[in-house]
């Protein structure tokens, strides 16, 4: 699998299909770090483990590189979906970006509760079937109980927040300038924990139809907040109701922006654990 990735990367550089390939390098002293391979002979030091999401780095590289610089990214399924989503939102020029798609292992899929641990364009490795996030014990625990019980559980983990902004900083989709989390109207400055409603829920709703569940936010969280699970319900709602998944189809737009007229009757397609929509909540 690794050799195949290296071969493709070398070919892309030799044939000038890409000016650089973003991947991992195992350098001197066996240190592994992200690297932009620009010379074919460097590629022999390329590795693909550990899982190290590169989509966010790819955007910043493309933004600061010269015009027409073409970058190929060694991309896992989630990296690819993030890049696709960014292209849909005109954050990346399609013609400047390529991917070398690699599949994740079963262990990786489990630890990320990933339902699609492979990219659409798969160049190396075997696509394995994903895990059902609702089978995950952490997710089950968080979604069990009534609204107040769930709120209590979420408050417990979200109150651990040390406001590092790592979830935002590492999220490939969080590219808004200015960022709402830096707006004092919403988020009080200089205080931890960040407020649950105004910080975490604003972020979650901003990403409701764009989150590709890559888990970069959760990986970057120093206090282990289950951020993938936080996005899960909204992602699943879009999938179950509209058959929509962020980052999959480069041509399909978010139903939140374009398909509101096809909104289902209240409650019809809601997951059964949602019991907060009661008749007396009607406006």
């Amino acid at each position, binding site marked *: 699998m690794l050799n195949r990735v290296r071969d493709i990367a070398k070919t892309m550089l030799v044939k000038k299909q890409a000016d*650089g390939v973003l991947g991992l390098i195992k350098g*001197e*002293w*066996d*240190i*592994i*770090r*992200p*690297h*932009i391979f*620009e010379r074919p002979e460097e590629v022999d030091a390329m590795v693909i483990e*550990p899982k*190290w999401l590169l989509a966010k*780095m790819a955007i*910043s*590289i493309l933004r*600061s*590189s010269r015009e027409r610089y073409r970058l190929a990214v060694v991309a896992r399924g989630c990296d690819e979906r993030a890049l696709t989503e960014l292209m849909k939102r005109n954050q990346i020029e399609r013609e400047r970006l390529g991917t070398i798609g690699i599949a994740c292992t079963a262990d990786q899929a489990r630890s990320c509760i990933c339902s699609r641990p492979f990219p659409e364009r798969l160049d190396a490795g075997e696509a394995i079937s994903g895990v059902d996030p609702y089978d995950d014990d952490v997710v089950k625990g968080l979604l069990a109980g009534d609204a107040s019980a769930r709120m209590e559980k979420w408050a417990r983990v979200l*109150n*651990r927040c*040390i*406001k*590092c*902004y*790592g979830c935002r*900083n*590492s999220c490939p989709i969080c590219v808004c300038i200015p960022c709402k989390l*830096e707006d004092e109207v919403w988020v009080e*400055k*200089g205080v*931890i*924990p960040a407020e649950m409603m105004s910080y975490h829920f604003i972020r979650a709703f901003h990403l409701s139809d764009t989150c590709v569940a890559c888990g970069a936010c959760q*990986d*970057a*969280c*120093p*206090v*282990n907040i289950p951020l993938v699970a936080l996005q899960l319900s909204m992602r699943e709602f879009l999938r179950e109701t509209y058959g929509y998944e962020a980052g999959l189809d480069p041509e399909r737009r978010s139903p939140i922006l374009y398909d509101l007229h096809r909104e289902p009757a209240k409650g019809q397609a809601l997951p059964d654990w949602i019991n907060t929509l009661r008749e007396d909540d009607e406006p």
Partner: protein
Amino acid sequence: MSPDYIKTICPYCGVGCGLLLKVEDGKVTATLPDREHPVSRGTLCIKGWSAHEFVHHPERLKSPLVRRGDRFEEISWKEAIALAAEKLKVTAERFGGDAIGGLSSAKCTNEENYLFQKLIRMAFKTNNVDHCARLCHAPTAAGMGQTTGSGAMTNSISDLAGAECILIVGSNAAESHPIIMGEVYKAVDRGAHVIVVDPRRTAVAANAEIHLRMNPGADIPLLAGMMRHIIDSGLANEKFISERMEGFPELKKFLDSWPVEKAANECGIAEGDIKRVAEVYAKAKDSAIIYCMGITQHACGTANVHAVCDLAMLCGKIGKESSGVYPLRGQNNVQGACDMGALPNVYPGYQNVTDRAVQEKFEKAWGRALSAKPGLTVTEMIGSAGKEIRALYIMAENPAISDPDVNHVLESLPKLDFLIVQDIFLTETAKLANLILPAVAFAEKTGTYTNTERRFQLLRKAVKPPGDAKGDFEIICLVANALGLDFSYTHPREVMDEIAKLVPAYGGVSFDRLEKAGLQWPCPDGGHGGTRFLHEGRFTRGKGLFIAPAYTRPFEKPDREYPFWLNTGRMFAHYHTGTMTRRSPFLKREMEGPYVELHPEDARAAGIKDGDRIRITSRRGNIVTAARITERVARGSIFAPFHFTEARANVLTNPVLDPVSKIPEFKACAARIEKEPDERRQG
């Protein structure tokens, strides 16, 4: 040029997280977390994510500056080094070597600290070298040194996740050592009990199972009450005490004078709560104690550390995995600066300056006669400026903000015949200097830092320094050579090799071995893989020693004139004197200026609203700052972070010292508050 990603270590706190600096066209443009780092594992706090932001700041010092009256003028390095050497030499000749003092730096590398103390000791035959550990963990070095033989964190950060009980005393790790909290919460998620002892309701306390909000400075009564109950209810680890400890009768006698009821009255915690937490701590299979400045920054700081160690040893919760005592070191390399002997009483590796054999060893290795007399501490050197101390060489320290009673510091430093300050910005201290030497930032140098879990880690140069700034390593060598010493080092690795020869515990440490993940000392030889936890089977000093802690109440307490307890400390977005963080745009955005925390009821009584400007006055001076009304502080207490030059909390703090470690009582003094007249209405 495409960007490159350079693996290095964060310059802020003692956790020592792994960073990747993104380098583009010779500039660091971003910081990313290092997924491969053994401690931080791909996470960072807000300061870590912003670590690159001050590096290319336009205010960086770019050439040596000499004072001419009220102004600074640029001079060449040749002139600057000659001037530094000349002034130090003349002062030493005229007043003796003990008239020279050096403040080394917990921000600098091990190699730089080693060279700095070597320079001071060799060139002037004095031990007047110290650094800011005096203001944070000097009681740890002293107190844990006495009880266990090693003044360092006993275990590893990753051990915390396996603990069944974590007792956190006087540490706001969520703001000051955020990455440690991840390990604490891992333990919580596995069912661990977390007990927090803190007069403030910090984020750590708010997330704990039990928060004991004790009276300021009453740590010893609380811990004594716990120990008394543990003994009374047969929960002491008698096997451990009889096999591995000495001094138990003395501790027992001390505890006889602290019935739980008396302890409860003194610390303000209910008797039942003291008993409950004592039982939780003692009964858990593995219990760890985390402590920080809330323990050390008191006039009985060393005794507080004794009490913490006593509790751990009484229950046998030390010398094994997921237990032990965790002093969280402040600065990125404060552990290393202590290890390297930037202290007035010890050579590198805590080898005593008064020990004749040790002195001979260093005299032989360095080829010069050395002093057997312990030197002065930070606060003593500054206090005797212009008297015993005539010239001071300060490397990357900022006592004009960090020391207690800073008005006194500001009066003292100008009394020196000559003050040399080596730093990266024109700090409040540098403004008082006769000579300023421009040094380089973490991203511009190679060397090693030692984190709070005794881990030597490699710092890698990512970019070139600005202008004519030189590395501290090179500057020290230039000054030393100008003073007639032979510091002909060409690379920090040579210094590390020299250290390894002189300190048995670092014998196996070399740059080549640090490249991948670092090494935790003790590491006595090249085949040794480092030490995850200390005191297994045997304490460093042989048997562990119980010491009856000598309790004293805070020197000042609220009275009619000064009715509030004033507590000082850090907040999450800034670091210490703010030299770096307040020049980082993202951190500055998060917290622009100074504030003081005030309880809502106290605010109401004084007619103060959130954001109002208030004046805080203590017996030392006063500052004007913004009120932040919050229940984080108890009624009758206020809290001021000390990062802000425009409202220096240390104008207020009490310079009374712990008799053993000479740490000042930063955590408790008396103050009053007054609402400032509204400027808008006046104007």
